[in-house]
């Protein structure tokens, strides 16, 4: 049932959502479009998988949802970043960078 390409690693989608929402509050569809555009369509995201991720963030208090009207005049949830979400994003980003550094170091000798 689940043969679609997965996230790179657990939490990556959440991190990207938070990063995107840091710029401006968005509703689900717009959020997906932003992420796709920002990654130049490199990341294959199953669009619907945004919703379980958003629910996880809602539960942890990283985002807040409010009813609003989208640009195409639909009644949708607009997601905002909360202060908890900002802190969470910072922590995630720094640990992600550490991980990237680590991976880069492991990989570099072979490269050279």
């Amino acid at each position, binding site marked *: 049932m689940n043969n679609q390409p997965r996230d790179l690693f657990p939490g990556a989608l959440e991190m990207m959502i938070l990063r995107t929402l840091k710029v401006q509050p968005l509703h689900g569809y717009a959020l997906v479009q932003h992420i796709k555009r920002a990654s130049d369509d490199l990341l294959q995201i199953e*669009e619907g*998988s945004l*919703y379980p991720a958003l629910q996880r963030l809602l539960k942890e208090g990283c985002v807040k949802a409010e009813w609003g009207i*989208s640009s195409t005049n639909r*009644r949708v949830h607009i997601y905002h970043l909360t202060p908890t979400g900002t802190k969470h994003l910072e922590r995630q980003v720094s640990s992600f960078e550490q991980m990237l550094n680590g991976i880069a170091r492991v990989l570099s000798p072979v490269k050279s």
Partner: protein
Amino acid sequence: MSWLSRVFHRRRFHNDLSAEMRAHLDEKIAALIASGMSSEEATRTARREFGNVTLLEERSREVWRWPSLESFVADIHYAFRMLRKSPAFTAIAVLTLALGIGANTAIFSLVDGIILRPLPYPHSDQIVYFEWLNKTEIIPDLSVPEFEFFRDHASSFSAVAGFQGVVDEELNQGPSTRWLKAGFVTDGFFESLGVNPSLGRPFGREFTRENGASAAILTDSLWRSAFSADPGIVGRQIILNNQNYTVTGVLPSGFMYTEPADLFVSVHLGHSLADEGLNTDVIGRLKTGVSLTQANSEATLLGRQFLTQAPASQRQNSGTLHLDRYQDYLASDHRETLLMLLSAVGLLLLIACANVASLLLARATSRQREISIRLSLGAGRRRLLQQFLCEGLLLGVAGAAAGLAVASLGVFVSAIPWDLPSIDRIALDGRVLLFTSLVAIAVSIVFGLASFFQTRKLDLNNALKDGRVSAARRSRTGLLSALVVGEVAISLLLVISAGLLIQSLHNLFQEKLGFNPAHVILMHTPFRPTTTDAAIWNLERQALARIQTIPGVQSAAVVSVAPLHGGGNLPTQRDGHPEDSIGGTEYRSISADYFSTLNIPVLRGRAFEQSDFTASASVAVINETLARKWWPGQNPIGDRILVGVYQGHQYFSAPPCQVIGVVADVKGSRLAAPAPPMMYVPASLGSFNKSTDWVIRASASAGLASSLQNAVTGIAPDQRITVLEPMAQLINGSASETNFEALLMSTFGALGLILTLVGVYGVLSFQVAQRTHEIGIRIALGATRRDVWRLVIGKAARVTAIGVVIGLLAAFGTTRLMASELYHVQPTDPWIFAVVAILVLLVALLAAYIPARRAMKVDPLVALRYE
């Protein structure tokens, strides 16, 4: 939306989420169409890129799920459906539990109110009660000299006080009067109880001196009803029986003591005869920091000192002075009864549990397929266990709720024949509710496990193939039989206990009264303390003359105290024989027709004649017991009795009485006690008693009450009449305690029998249903209907017989614990044991009858077709 509110608003949340995802898809489709796709292609692309909507929705929901809670809710839903699908099973199970839990709640309320909950006074554990202990008995009343000695010498108490009972007193307010109940207490009484008047203060010792002024403390309700809550009442004088009392205080509302009273007045402690009798309840409050053991060692010492120092006439008690916690003292009379009732309802609950467990076990057959399917679909054992626990819990909660309803009917509580300050507080409160819930939960867990453990041996293949489970059958049949054996044994024990109590009650009613209460009416007239003996006799004489003219009245008489209506005794001695002394000979002053009115036979000599009521010489008639005690094998007629004399010591002077006759024994104050030594004197001599009982034998009772009242009030218009009832009622009253116990125990015994009947029926029906196939084969192979009948009934008889034997052994071992509740019955009365054993056997066979008939009617063709 908070996390919790999502859990509770699941449906709306789900709709919101679906709507949001649909909006996303719509928006995407619209965007794709705008970029040039056909609507069909756009829809397909959007759906592909979005992913599986249902799955994503499910995963979004899972984020919020508290897994155990949601599956718990699902289990409850499921359990509800399962219980609703078999209403007969559910009704019987819930009803069974309701009876068990309801009875337990009611009896626990009694135990809680009487034994466990503290008395309604501050630091009530510091209140102690003084009593004498000797080798054979506990003497709960002290004399005034004893009380004063202990009060003045003890150092362990912050207060010691005496209580001398409640007496009717007349409150005079100008021209109007009303009757009140006045409790006679010493100073320190309210300090001992720890109760402060809400107005004024308790009275001091100066009010208890002989010939001193009198004080009164009003209850809140009297203060409001008779004095319109006058805030200036303290210090004012009120008039009781034409005597002045200074009001020193008003009690807080809700104050209660063992005997209800409207006000408390100071008792005057002198050294008259009354003060040397054992007539004072003594209570005390321990000083803070003094333990009961410390106080008791002081009391032992003080008791010994009193016995060596006091003058001989005051040494009436012997043994050890002992302190008991007041609550324990009050509960002591009822502790055994309560424990007996508590054990009975505990056993009843056991039967109820066994019953529901066997019902669940039996029902499980019909669920075997369902369980097998669930197991084969991958349901975990844990999940199944959880579900069974859920069903049990639901049953338990439903049973507890219904049980609470049963208990709150209050049938039991309102029937308690005991006088206790805590009796009004017996209510179904939160603690009892908690107790019930705990019982329900414990029971439910047992049920859950009982149904679960039979799925253990389930053979999935066989179960799915034909819905029959052979592997588990044998062990379940064994377990079911064990449950039936247990039920039969316990209900046998309950019914035997009930039988013993019923026999006791029967014996009490068979007790030789010594008089004939049929068609006799009892009337009671209390007099003011100031009324003279001559005035009382005058009224009695005139009223009796009038009563005898009332149509239907055959004869009428007066007596100072009627049988079973109280007592009144005086020290007496056989003239010239100090060794023949009785501290309290029951003393009755009667009119001429007393013996004939109550049909009391004269055994020797003669009854009183009219001349005895005018003669100056005193005469007496004695009962058999007194004659046997002082004149064994001799003729007492002509001998003399000294009244007011004990072992040569004269307490007061009264003319010696010459014995003129002996009458048959009549009960004293208690039905369960043998007749006490008793003497009768002519009423013209005076009665030492400020009240009179009238006994009237009449052929018709219609309109008699008002004629009797008129006869008395026609002579003394303001004379009160407080009792006017058939004498038979007194006898019922004397047996009320045994009656109460017998009623409750028979109820429990009957419930136990009914539950056992249902249990045996359920189990046998199940077993017959299980063996339909086998019975079919037997019949096909030539077994007769008779053989089949014998097969089922024989099985029931074997199982029941084992239960009966175990029950009989248990009863032999335990019924002696209730010996003190029994009257003239051996705890192992073989007759009762045999009758009850047969009764239980018959009930079990009755329960087996229907399943046995069903087995007989098995059609071998139908039974084998399923093969």
